[in-house]
């Protein structure tokens, strides 16, 4: 199958972002926290994207910041996925009381805006990367739970699942061998979306000063640091904002393509 241009662009940008994050130490021209130039210098041959509010190189901070943002977003979406989909599948296959308790618990969590929960928790708990990852993973898991339960409920009534039950298979086999392979395509597309939401969420938290703490840099925090410059016509705050937007769009394009591709695989639904 030929890859559409949009997906190709998305894939190229996503790969660039991830490579930049992984090889940050080699790529960044300047250290993360060294004031190397004047305040809010315009982009130039020396400082490709200019300098920030205290004269640090924006490109270097963007690269290091990307490392943190992407790492936290990846870790939390993986956690959200493992937790959400396993619990969703269990709720769908067990039904009854288990389903009721899990579903109502999730309803309860989703009734309160995620940001409010996050703000309260982060005010109380130590603001470390681990806390952030656990918190965002847990909050996002509610969405994944909803989706995977809905998908699995449809699959769990299929005769092949009943055949597996009649054979005497355990819960694990039914979830991982009968249901999961058939639920994968919507879940993979959802993974892309959840990753983007994680990036946006962590940027929001950092912008509010509750996310990633100095001396670590991250994109949301960089927008916050440089937002004062906007009044004086300095573009420094736009650079990290642009990075967030481009990453979000690229990942989305790839996720769309993955969804359209997995559904047309052998034995998939639709074509």
């Amino acid at each position: 199958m030929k890859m559409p241009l949009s997906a190709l662009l998305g894939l190229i940008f996503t790969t660039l972002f991830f490579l930049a994050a992984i090889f940050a130490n080699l790529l960044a021209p300047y250290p993360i926290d060294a004031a190397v130039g004047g305040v809010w210098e315009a982009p130039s041959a020396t400082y490709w994207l200019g300098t920030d509010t205290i004269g640090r190189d924006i490109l270097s901070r963007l690269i290091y910041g990307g490392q943190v943002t992407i790492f936290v977003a990846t870790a939390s979406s993986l956690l959200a996925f493992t937790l959400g989909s396993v619990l969703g599948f269990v709720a769908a296959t067990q039904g009854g009381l288990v389903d009721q308790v899990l579903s109502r618990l999730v309803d309860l969590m989703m009734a309160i805006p995620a940001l409010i929960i996050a703000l309260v928790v982060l005010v109380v708990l130590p603001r470390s990367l681990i806390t952030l990852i656990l918190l965002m993973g847990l909050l996002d898991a509610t969405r994944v739970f909803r989706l995977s339960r809905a998908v699995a409920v449809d699959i769990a009534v299929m005769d092949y699942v009943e055949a597996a039950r009649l054979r005497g298979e355990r819960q694990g086999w039914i979830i991982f061998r009968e249901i999961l392979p058939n639920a994968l395509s919507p879940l993979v597309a959802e993974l892309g979306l959840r990753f983007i939401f994680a990036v946006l969420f962590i940027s929001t938290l950092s912008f509010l000063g509750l996310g990633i703490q100095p001396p670590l840099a991250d994109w949301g925090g960089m927008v916050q640091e440089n937002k004062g410059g906007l009044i004086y016509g300095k573009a420094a705050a736009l650079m990290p904002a642009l990075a967030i937007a481009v990453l979000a769009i690229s990942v989305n394009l790839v996720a769309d393509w993955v969804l359209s591709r997995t559904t047309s695989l052998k034995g998939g639904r639709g074509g």
Partner: protein
Amino acid sequence: MDNPLLEIKNLRIEATAYPPGEPPRHVVLVDDVSVSVQKGRVLGLIGESGAGKSTIGLASMAFGRGGVRLTGGQVLLNGRDIRGADAGTLRALRGREVTYVAQSAAAAFNPAKRLMEQVIETTLLHGVMGRPEAEARAVSLFRKLGLPNPEIFGARFPHQVSGGQLQRAMTAMALCPKPELVVFDEPTTALDVTTQIEVLAAIKEAIHDTGVAALYITHDLAVVAQVADDILVLRGGKRVEYGTTDQIINTPQEAYTRALVSVRSIDHVEKPLAAPILSVAGVTARYKGISFDVLKNVTVDLAPGQTLAVVGESGSGKSTLARVITGLLPAAQGRITFAGRQLSPDLASRTKDDLRELQMIYQMADTAMNPRQTVGTIIGRPLEFYFGLKGEAKRDRVQDLLDQIEMGKGYIDRYPAELSGGQKQRVCIARALAAKPKLIICDEVTSALDPLVADGILKLLLNLQAQEGVAYLFITHDLATVRAIADRIAVMYRGAVVRYGSKTDVLTPPFDDYTDLLLSSVPEMKLGWLEGVLLIRKMESAGN
């Protein structure tokens, strides 16, 4: 002879297929088919799935489903070629001159509107007559089609009437604008036999009274023999044979037609009574949240290596009996004894041997196999699960089983989507056999298959029974299948067994009322069968 109403000449229909993972492919659905229908005559289109019969039916109003193109030949309606006519011409013609009755009336009606609104909709839309006139015509059609309370029937919503009534309402819808041609696309296939005969009789009478011409599409030759004047036999989009109904049924020329006519003529001699391997005693069951019993005091026995056919229409509780025996629905009362030990009512507390020795085959092989597993995995899993077979040993045994179901090499690494309907059902049989069961519950295993394919499956099941000595609990609504395979028969009606015994006993008069109704409703492959049955019933009710 007059000019034919509909004349199809050298029709060619093509489509583009998008097989998963492969480049798009050009396929010819119908190739060089010519046929004609005179005013007031009924043409039967018959063939297995994929024969192109529905495609030709829709082509008679110059319509092709998504991606289907009418690429060659002529479709002459009253002498003018409508193939490739402009949208305005077609719009004026569809639903006016040519109307359509779909297989599933339940899916074709809008659940939010009353029946009358929908029945007269096209008639009003085309301005054939005014509303009061259209409503009066609809009521007279309801009466003609034998619907209850024809004056107020139209005020009901689709969910308030039965499936058979809905199918007749759809026929009224098609006849209301006084069309010249009606296309019936499998109108009775989804109905129970006892309902089918009523709808069939109603449709036949309505066609006769209104003098409309009709295309009658079905896969059941015995059904089409009752309504059609001429029959066109199709296979793979090509014409096999075309002739009068009398000629096709009584003196078929082509081998394929002869096979269709002689289908379901498997000879099966019933085995003598023996000590049972499965005995169901006084079983009563109900679903959660329902206030009545779906099984009432059911008692049946089944001997090793024999077949017990459980017969009844939909809702009679035959599938529920299977669920109770497998433990999916624990019985409220009664005892199930299997292979000398009493089975726990609940699936979770049964031993691995109980589970292994009692296997199940489903109606829809499509949904009974995980689409993401290969044939090797599907058949191999019970071998691994029950006998601990792994690697080469498992693969060899899977191949043995594939040989046993007459599928041979080259299938082990395929996915279900790459198999035909009959092959899928064979793989399901192999999966059940892999467990070395003593009893296999077959739930309508042939009802979703074409007649010739179904015959092949029945023969295979009989062979396997002879080789392996496995017993079958065979659930079906099709009495021809029962004759072909059963040793003992239980007739179920509203959750109770109304007649039970050896095949000969059950199928020999005197019958109870229900069994009589059921047996006499099965279409037979001969002309005039429908009239004969209706006459007898009329005389009986007059006698009462």
